[in-house]
Structure formats: C-alpha cells, structure tokens
C-alpha cells in the first residue's frame, strides 16, 4: 500500500536563496538601525546645544533696546524640533535593529516565531515612517497654502 504523503509544497518557506536575501536585508536593517539610533542621539544633543546657544545670545543682548524677538523662545523651539526628530530617529532605529536581529536569529535557529517577530518589527518601522510622512506632507501643504495666501499682501 502506498504511503499517504503530506508535503508542504503550498506553504511559503524561506529556501536557500530567500534566506540569503533575507539575511542581507537583515544585516542592512541592523546597520540602518544602529545609524538611526546614533543620529537620534546626536539630534537630541544638537537640540540641547541650540537651546543653550540661543539662551546665551538672549542673555548677551538682554540690555539692548529695541529687541523685537526672543532668542530664548527660538532656542526652545529648536530644542522641540530637534528633540522630536531625534525621538523619531531613535524609534525607527530601534524597530529596524529589532527586525535585523530577529530575522538573523530566525534564520540561524529556524525559529518561525522569531521570523514573525522580525516582520512585526519591520511593519512597525514602516508604520512609523508612513505616519511621519503623512504628517510632514500635510505640514508642507499647509505651509505652501499659508505662504501663497499670506505672500499676496505681504510683498514689498
């Protein structure tokens, strides 16, 4: 009697070629993750330095009459902008690094759950960037519309 064989032909597997491609993607994901985390930290440090520099300018010129702007407020705005950019880079870097680490581990140990976890991290990475890009696009559009409506009467 012939044996009743069940094969996994109709299942998605990571064969040797796919494993090589996924391993390369995971390696570059790790590189991107590490660089993004470093850049996030650098951006936060830059924000703090910008704020302290603006505060110094503010205190240097505090005695002058006719000061029409507050450089301290400008420094705080700089800190917020650089801080937000830094946190975004950090967050996306952590997700990219998680993808790289978990996908590599999955390929090393044939761990299906680690693979799913790695893909989940990659999904979070793209979700973060998608949301940020939508927000940035909206801000750019608002800026352009504001510039177009405001510049009509404001030109010299």
């Amino acid at each position, binding site marked *: 009697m012939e044996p009743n064989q069940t094969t996994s032909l109709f299942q998605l597997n990571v064969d040797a070629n796919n494993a090589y491609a996924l391993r390369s993607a995971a390696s570059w994901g790790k590189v*991107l993750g590490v660089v*993004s985390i470093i850049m996030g930290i*650098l951006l936060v440090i830059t924000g703090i330095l910008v704020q302290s520099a603006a505060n110094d300018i503010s205190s240097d010129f505090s005695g002058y009459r006719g000061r029409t702007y507050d450089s301290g407020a400008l420094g705080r705005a700089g800190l917020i902008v650089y801080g937000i950019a830094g946190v975004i880079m950090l967050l996306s870097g952590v997700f990219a690094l998680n993808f790289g680490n978990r996908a590599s581990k999955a390929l090393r140990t044939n761990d*299906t*759950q680690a693979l*799913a976890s790695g*893909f989940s991290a990659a*999904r979070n990475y793209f979700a973060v960037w*998608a949301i940020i*890009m939508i927000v940035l696009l909206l801000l750019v559009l608002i800026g352009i519309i504001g510039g177009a409506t405001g510049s009509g009467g404001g030109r010299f």
Partner: protein
Amino acid sequence: MENTTGDLFDDELKMDATAKNHLKGIATWAMIVVVTAVLGYIVTIADTFLSPAYQVGRMREGFTASVAFGQKSMTGAIIQTVIGLIIHFFLYRFCVLISQSVRAMDQDKTGAAFRNLKIYFAITGVISVIVALAVLILLAAMI
C-alpha cells in the same frame, strides 16, 4: 495504511500565518510610505518651479546686499527628488513583489522582494551615515 509526513522542506524556515499577516502589513505601510513620498516630491518640485523666490528686505543706507528669504534651489530639489524616487522605487518593488508572493505562495517573488528590501535598506543606511556625519560636523562646529 502507513501515514508518513514527508515534508520536502523540513530543513527550511517556514512562514506561518502570523508571519504572512505581518508581511501583508509591511507591504501596506510601505506602500503608504511610497505614495506619500512621491506626493511629497511632486509638491516639492511644483513649489520650486511654480512659486518664485521673493525678496524680503530692501537696500537701505549704504547696504549693497539685499536680504533674500525663501529662495529655493532648483538643483537641490531635483537631486533630492531623483535620489528619493530611486530609493522609493525599490521599496515599491518590494511592496508589489511581497504582496504577490504571499498571495500566490511564490518563493521566487519572495526572494526578489527581500533583495529589493535589502537595496532600500542599503541606500537608506548609506544616506543615514552621511547625514549623521553632517550632524556630527555641525555639533563639532557648535562646541
């Protein structure tokens, strides 16, 4: 009857339903990234070419240089758009191929999709290194 499970791919890593769902999620979010990025490039190019740079400030009392704000670099915008389109082309290819591979259980397309993802990560990684170096130089100049 002898019932044996002759798995042809016993030594291969399998993608379960959760992994496939995550892959679909990646494809969806990555496609949103591609679409918003392309819209952003269109807006940037349109803004650069359609709205002229305007001068704020005028020459006054011996000042020979006027102050120009809002000037846009066309070359910069074009370079940024070209590089961005190249990067996002690979991400777009990844989205399309991974969606097709999950739908059709096609191993070749899965491999091709991961290769495109690798290229996307590689280019983004290299650009991130360059930007990080620029930020480092800025920091060194501030200190």
